[in-house]
């Protein structure tokens, strides 16, 4: 089974760099790459893999450093479209991928989100809770790799 991890986020924006830091920890261990923000590039990064794991900072009112994980299922995200000005949402990109390239898209896309404490433009470094969460998520992904490869 071919698995890829994509970390999304800007390391110059405080906790927004969580996805980038996870990728830094996983690089050389697993197939991993980084995007500063969601764009159509994402499709090229995950096409032809069986499983894609997307890691991103989220701000959805959880405790800083709290981690959420769920599958982005095919076609489930269409209601979230619209109102865009300059770029595309991750859901729109993934759903568009399933719609246009159904045979090349991964069988499964897992999203892992890390709740931020703060996003400070042009500030390096993560907050303590997010730093801990980055360790946790990197371990979790290594487990997913181990588990998935064992059961395959």
């Amino acid at each position: 089974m071919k698995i890829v991890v994509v970390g999304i986020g800007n390391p110059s924006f405080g906790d927004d760099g969580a996805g980038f830091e996870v990728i830094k920890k996983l690089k050389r261990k697993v197939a991993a790459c980084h995007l500063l923000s969601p764009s159509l590039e994402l499709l090229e990064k995950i096409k032809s893999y069986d499983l894609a794991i997307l890691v991103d900072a989220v701000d959805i009112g959880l405790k800083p450093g709290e981690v959420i994980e769920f599958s982005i299922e095919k076609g489930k995200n269409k209601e979230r479209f619209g109102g865009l000005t300059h770029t595309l949402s991750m859901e729109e990109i993934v759903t568009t991928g399933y719609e246009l390239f159904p045979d090349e898209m991964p069988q499964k896309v897992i999203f892992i989100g890390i709740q931020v404490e703060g996003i400070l433009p042009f500030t390096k470094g993560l907050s303590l809770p997010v730093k801990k969460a980055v360790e946790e998520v990197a371990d979790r992904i290594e487990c997913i790799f181990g588990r998935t490869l064992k059961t395959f």
Partner: protein
Amino acid sequence: MRKAEIEPITRLEGHGKITVFLDDNGNVENAFLQVVEFMGYEKFLQGMPIEEVPRTASTICGVCRAVHFSAALKAADQIFSAEPPPAAKKIRELLLLAHHVEDHTEILYALGLPDFICGPTAPPQERNLIGVAKKVGKELVKDVLQKRFSAAKIVEILGGKPVHPVAAVPGGWSKKVTEEEKAEIEKLSDDLLELGKMTVELFKEVVVKNPEYSKLLKEESFNVVTNYMGTVDENNKVTYYDGTQVVVSPEGREIVRFKGKEYLDVLAEKTLPWSYAKFPYLKRKGWRGLEDGKDTHLCSVGPLARFNASDGYSTPLAQKAYEEMIEFFGEKPVYNIFAYHWARAIEILNQAELIKELLKSPELTDEKVVTPPGKVTGEGVGIIEAPRGTLIHHYRTDENGLVTDANLIVPTTINNGSIQVAVRKAAKYFIKDGKVDEGTLNLIEMAHRPYDLCLACATHAYPGHYPTNVIIYKNGKRIKELRNY
């Protein structure tokens, strides 16, 4: 007075908000769009070695990956008195052009054209790339995305790293283009040329030949009459990486030409209390408020501004498309904001043709790609054309090349005044007798979408889209709320 607000939930780096003021009859008195300012970057760079700035600048924005990079790099050349060799200049230009193609394609097909292809009042769930695929065919959209990826691949080959270029050095480029790489880029550029041709044709088919949209293109309510700025070559044709900046009046008369630091004599900036963003205007005309018209001091940038400020394009297919567009409007400058999308489509074609021309140059694969640094001058100004308009990076350093001062003027900020006028006109056109519904929200947003605001610059949050809600007040009470999420 009633107040209608179109307010997105704050994204991670800021937000934009449209506020519409209605009179007692429910008609629009005024409207404003608050544009996110480029906050903090200048401070972030303080003390940074100038040679590090271009690579850092490439990470400012997840979308505009090659543009801040290119402008900062040009400034760094000046600071190190290091004029890049011809091969390096060509590599940089190729990279910028390929980036334009990928960016314009995403903006047109995913954000701008869905308004026309799926219909301006279609629900947001249908007004997107998938909706476009349903209307024009899945295979066509797949083809567009594959061809767009060819542009991204060129950026990657030249930039030395996927997504964000790192190969920059002041005075040139850190690696030469090999014959193999050149051959690969040549192959990829065929896709770009096809993409340009099909995009111009698609725009004509879907928008120009549609009587309803064709009417919108000529509707005076969507005219934003300003001065226009762009960058031109020695024949006054549109150029992107290097050239002279030119400003023409609303009548198309040349007002001023400038280079480098002279921008300080051309543009001034006004701060208004209700907006974080500044409002650049033409210094020589003085601040005259947020009004368009023949006497305006406002200046627009971007694809349509380049179209208006130049004598067209240096490549044959794009020039032909330019002449067709002028024929449609019957005159130039073209003021209609939806024509930004048309000019954007023509630019894809122009950029693909320019890439083809650059690839013909034997200098492209020269061994010499860097000029060693000379005396530190302490100051540099890099100006390029970004997809959304003229971008200015101005740096000062100490004698060791450490940044002491940075000033960035980004296209969305230059367009700030024009955007206010466009939003106000659209609000006046679409809101009558207090009637505001789901469709109104999009119709007003359509007025700022041609400018391709950089609201999403640099960062994002899951779910990453741009939730927007309209809140309508009557006599201080909230009477209605609309949302797209």
